[in-house]
């Protein structure tokens, strides 16, 4: 199975709150898990990525949590801001070499309200 299941489809969070987006995968060979942020009319931008040798990676207000046994990973946005309103995509791949391809989740549209 190559699918990556992402939830929720949409999310509304108040300013200052925590946004949580979840992804689950089936292929145990996946070992690279990036998250992308996409604003309307723009290409996806690489936000943060994790490999399964760590359970958590933090960059500023963005944190990836990774649960290898459950085959799940999630993105947490702390102190969410209106400027974080965008569509977020999780992805997974087996390695990052010439033969690897990213499998994308279906996306989560995040809206941060004042």
């Amino acid at each position, binding site marked *: 199975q190559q699918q990556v299941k992402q939830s929720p489809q949409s999310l509304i969070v108040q300013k200052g709150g925590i946004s949580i987006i979840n992804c689950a995968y089936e292929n145990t060979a996946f070992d690279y898990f990036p998250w992308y942020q996409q604003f309307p009319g723009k290409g*996806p931008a690489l936000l943060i990525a994790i490999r399964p040798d760590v359970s958590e990676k933090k960059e500023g207000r963005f944190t990836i949590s990774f649960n290898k046994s459950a085959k799940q990973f999630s993105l947490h946005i702390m102190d969410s801001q209106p400027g974080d309103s965008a569509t977020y*995509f999780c992805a997974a791949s087996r390695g990052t070499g010439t033969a690897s391809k990213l499998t994308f989740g279906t996306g989560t549209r995040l809206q941060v309200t004042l």
Partner: protein
Amino acid sequence: SAVISQKPSRDICQRGTSLTIQCQVDSQVTMMFWYRQQPGQSLTLIATANQGSEATYESGFVIDKFPISRPNLTFSTLTVSNMSPEDSSIYLCSVRLAGVGEQYFGPGTRLTVT
């Protein structure tokens, strides 16, 4: 990271015509990809653009419809041939950097076929 530019940024084309999209990267990269993103949807890989050889197409995409060129390590083109309204979409160029394997996306070309 990599800076990727695409031309044109958008176009409106008539049914039956063809459009060539250009992708330029600011550094030499090993892997270049072309994706399609329908409005409000996730990203679908069309093909991997191989330097000096024929592109590798994903299931459901064929060379006659989406011919791809990659004459060097910084440039690629995607042609959408004999267009129909179903080809209306955003087409994204993407590159993967050697070493860390991070993958970046261009700003996209928004194509509307009438």
